[in-house]
């Protein structure tokens, strides 16, 4: 334990420092090892998607990066400014929407900052609404605003759109990409949806049994990924242990929803 570097060394120039750096990361509950020997770097402004089946350790990894689980004696570097959007929006039902966004903000005109963030996600008209009156998509947009108002250098998304209907989900993809383009946080998003991963990511990291089994960097710009999608999907699904059936692929849908951004 003592021989390991303790992190937080500032040897290289800051602009080349990854915002996230895990070396030989291991996490286990009792005898049950969830993640073992995992190395991961995330560059500033990079959009990483973590893909995996249920129980592959994705959420455990995200919770580690969020600082929600203790990591004693591990070589883990995460930025101080980070924010999480959970699958359930986790808004406090007894605080109005703007107060939820302003939760924990201390400097400046808190109300104004919350308002600006809510306008950015298209909810300028629901500032004083009670969270329990929001639809699922609206609640997730509030959760996004609450995360982004902190200007995090690392934004963590834990299957944020899994509970939304297909159309709302596509709109949320566009929203997330446009917010990411404007604010440029490093993003790590957890999902089990291969098409979502292909449409959004700079890099797809595939996790299985607590190990990274495949990494794919996608160079094609978003909205022009119809060409690479089919091959990529079958590689990812293959690594997940799935069967890839030939037939009309949903590549067109990927082009459609990512194309709305350009």
């Amino acid at each position: 334990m003592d021989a390991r570097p303790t992190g937080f060394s500032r040897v290289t120039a800051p602009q080349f420092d990854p915002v996230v750096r895990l070396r030989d990361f291991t996490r286990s509950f009792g005898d049950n090892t969830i993640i073992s020997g995992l190395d991961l770097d995330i560059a500033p402004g990079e959009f990483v998607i973590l893909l995996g089946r249920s129980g592959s350790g994705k959420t455990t990894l995200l919770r580690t990066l969020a600082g929600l689980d203790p990591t004693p004696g591990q070589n883990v570097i995460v930025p101080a400014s980070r924010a999480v959007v959970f699958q359930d929006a986790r808004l406090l039902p007894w605080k109005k929407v703007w107060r939820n966004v302003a939760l924990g903000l201390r400097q400046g005109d808190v109300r104004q900052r919350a308002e600006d963030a809510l306008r950015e996600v298209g909810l300028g008209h629901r500032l004083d609404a009670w969270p329990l009156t929001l639809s699922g998509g609206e609640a997730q947009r509030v959760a996004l605003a609450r995360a982004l108002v902190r200007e995090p250098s690392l934004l963590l998304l834990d299957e944020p759109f899994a509970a939304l209907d297909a159309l709302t989900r596509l709109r949320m993809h566009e929203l997330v990409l446009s917010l990411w383009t404007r604010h440029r946080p490093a993003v790590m998003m957890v999902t089990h949806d291969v098409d979502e991963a292909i449409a959004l990511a700079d890099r797809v990291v595939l996790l299985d049994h607590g190990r990274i089994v495949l990494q794919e960097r996608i160079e094609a710009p978003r909205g022009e990924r119809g060409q690479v999608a089919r091959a990529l999907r079958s590689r990812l699904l293959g690594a997940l242990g799935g069967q890839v059936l030939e037939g009309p692929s949903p590549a067109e849908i990927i082009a459609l929803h990512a194309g709305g951004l350009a």
Partner: protein
Amino acid sequence: MAISHRISASLGSARWLSPLLFLLAWEAGSRSGLIPERTLAAPSKVLSTLLDMAVSGELADNLWVSFLRIVIGLAIGVTVGAVLALVAGLSRQGEVAVDPLMQIKRTIPTLALTPLFIVWFGIGETPKIALIAFASIFPVYLNLYSGIRGVDLRLLEGARSFGLSCAEQILHVILPGALPSLLVGLRYSLSVAILVLVVAEQINASAGLGYLINNARDFMRTDIIVVCLMIYAVLGLAADALVRAIENRALVWRPSIVAQ
């Protein structure tokens, strides 16, 4: 024919009819001498006594004394209950220290403590207030404690992920989350306080509703006894309305089931 039919139909669904008929029968029984006044005074007599007592100020004075007993006793009991619930709910050591004692206390019927309290505190105001306070601790404690423990851990985790300090988590998440339970406890405490007040006031009091009843018993003034019973009922209703009003203000964020 149609009009009388309509009247009988609307009378058939009137909920005030049977109490009114009951009062009329009672009055008729008293007037005819079937119910002697020493057994139960007539409604008209009760009403005129109520007016007399209201005009003379006798009612207001004694009501005020009883009211103060409830308010002071409740204030002490609710405060102690809330503090103990916070101690037990927010820390594991607090739970270990406080909860067993509270469970033991729960098994002792409060009113059984009356003789002991008289030995300790005499027969002045103190034992009455102490009994009310003691009885109202537990409902607040139990409900607030379980409310704190029942706060959604996912909300707490969400708040933690935004860097809220421990004190901020308590202030913004735990306490508002436990508020509905606290109000339920408060409602129980209020009704228990009134119940205990009735008994406690019969301990050699020289003022208050219980004193009025005791005095009336000695002179067989059943009219005054009935007036005091009515006042107790009104106190109970008012207490309930108070908590309802607090709930409506404090829990506006809950979508009302009735409205939908």
